[in-house]
């Protein structure tokens, strides 16, 4: 699907992927997340745990929130905390925080015991975000993280992303808007890279 994409990301900095609709931003992120098999090329994380795949060092924050409406907000979060394996790298010193604390940081602590189905779209999104705070993983893959958020929440999200960068994490994010991140690199996908090769499989 892609041709000639290569980038190198230092810990503590962010990569912003931009490009037109359907150019392949989401696909790139899903490939990095190990959800789409890599057709060719290599993916390497220096200093990662040897016996773990690259994608196990990453959090994926996509369009879907992975929130069960019938479980309470806290139950949702606690499940992900216990289920997701935390991974440490030497460069990354992000701390894990407790679920209640995370909810507090994101301003939805008062909904703790409500079923998650009662939350609005923006609140659900914040709950999904809390997942990234309770398990430490150095890489955050974020697909249009600010979609469905209002201006205030967007600012708060950017604050969290910057804090993650400050503690030595990496962020790779696809977006259509400008994000005020501290140290960024930009990867602009062009039609020649992707659109014409959309289905470059063995049959063409």
């Amino acid at each position: 699907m892609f041709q000639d994409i290569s980038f190198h990301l230092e810990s503590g900095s962010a990569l912003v992927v931009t490009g037109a609709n359907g150019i392949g931003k989401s696909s790139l992120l899903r490939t990095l997340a190990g959800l789409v098999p890599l057709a060719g090329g290599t993916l390497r994380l220096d200093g990662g745990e040897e016996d773990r795949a690259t994608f196990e060092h990453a959090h994926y924050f996509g369009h879907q929130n992975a929130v069960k409406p019938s479980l309470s907000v806290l139950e949702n979060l606690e499940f992900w905390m216990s289920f997701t394996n935390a991974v440490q790298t030497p460069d990354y010193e992000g701390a894990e925080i407790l679920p209640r604390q995370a909810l507090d940081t994101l301003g939805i602590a008062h909904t703790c015991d409500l079923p998650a189905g009662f939350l609005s779209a923006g609140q659900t999104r914040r709950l999904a975000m809390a997942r990234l705070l309770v398990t430490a993983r150095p890489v955050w893959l974020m697909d249009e993280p600010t979609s469905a958020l209002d201006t205030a929440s967007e600012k708060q999200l950017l604050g969290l992303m910057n804090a993650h960068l400050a503690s030595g994490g990496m962020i790779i994010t696809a977006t259509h808007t400008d994000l005020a991140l501290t140290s960024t690199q930009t990867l602009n996908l062009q039609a020649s890279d992707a659109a014409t090769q959309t289905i470059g499989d063995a049959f063409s």
Partner: protein
Amino acid sequence: MSIWDYANPTRFLRLVQVVLPWLTGLCVIAFAAGLYMSFFVAPEDYQQGDTVRIMYIHVPAAWLAMMCYSIMALSSLGTLVWKHPLADVSAKCAAPIGAAFTFMALVTGSLWGKPMWGTYWVWDARLTSVLVLLIMYLGLMTLWRTMEDPIRAGKAAAILTLVGALNLPIIKFSVDWWNTLHQPASVMRAGGPTIHPDILWPLLVMAIAFTLLFFVLHLMAMRNEILRRRVRSLRLRAAGAAQPGTVANATQPAE
């Protein structure tokens, strides 16, 4: 030259173009010989009369029904383990042919059963296994049909085919058990290992003819499937290609 050289569909298509006419010719000759032998050379059965000639269709069809599944299982290994790009094409194309042979075995068997047992169908172990095999073929075909993306459908079907292959012996065993438990109504003792050469030869020739028929149909179906996938990817590309042009359009004010 190894099979890997034909991983390239283009090269495979060229091979098909060369081989197919010869194979078709052989198939026609084998059928001519087989049909002639089974209708004019082979003797009538002293009990069954002319109906015994159904056997020359029925038995090869039943054999082919089973062989088809083995080929699909092998192709599924090709898809999952060796990741051969043509393997899932092969599996997908074998399924309808296998289903057709299975259906043919069922129909000819039933037609034969009417004069033999007085009924078209008994829940005999062997017949029932064939029926289950037919359901498995049809289920696989439906799985392929309901999934839009051929690659993903191929992988899903490969898993199901292999699980089915693991299960077939268990199914056969349990159906046998079920049937003996209820005292077999089976009458199918006609053949047995001691077949007279006069019957055996036409049968073998027909079996070869059926096998050739399978390969002809399979290759033709694979060729069609490859072309179909090319059309699909061309159309997908056509959908995406004009995107830059659209952007140019959009700069003009829309009325």
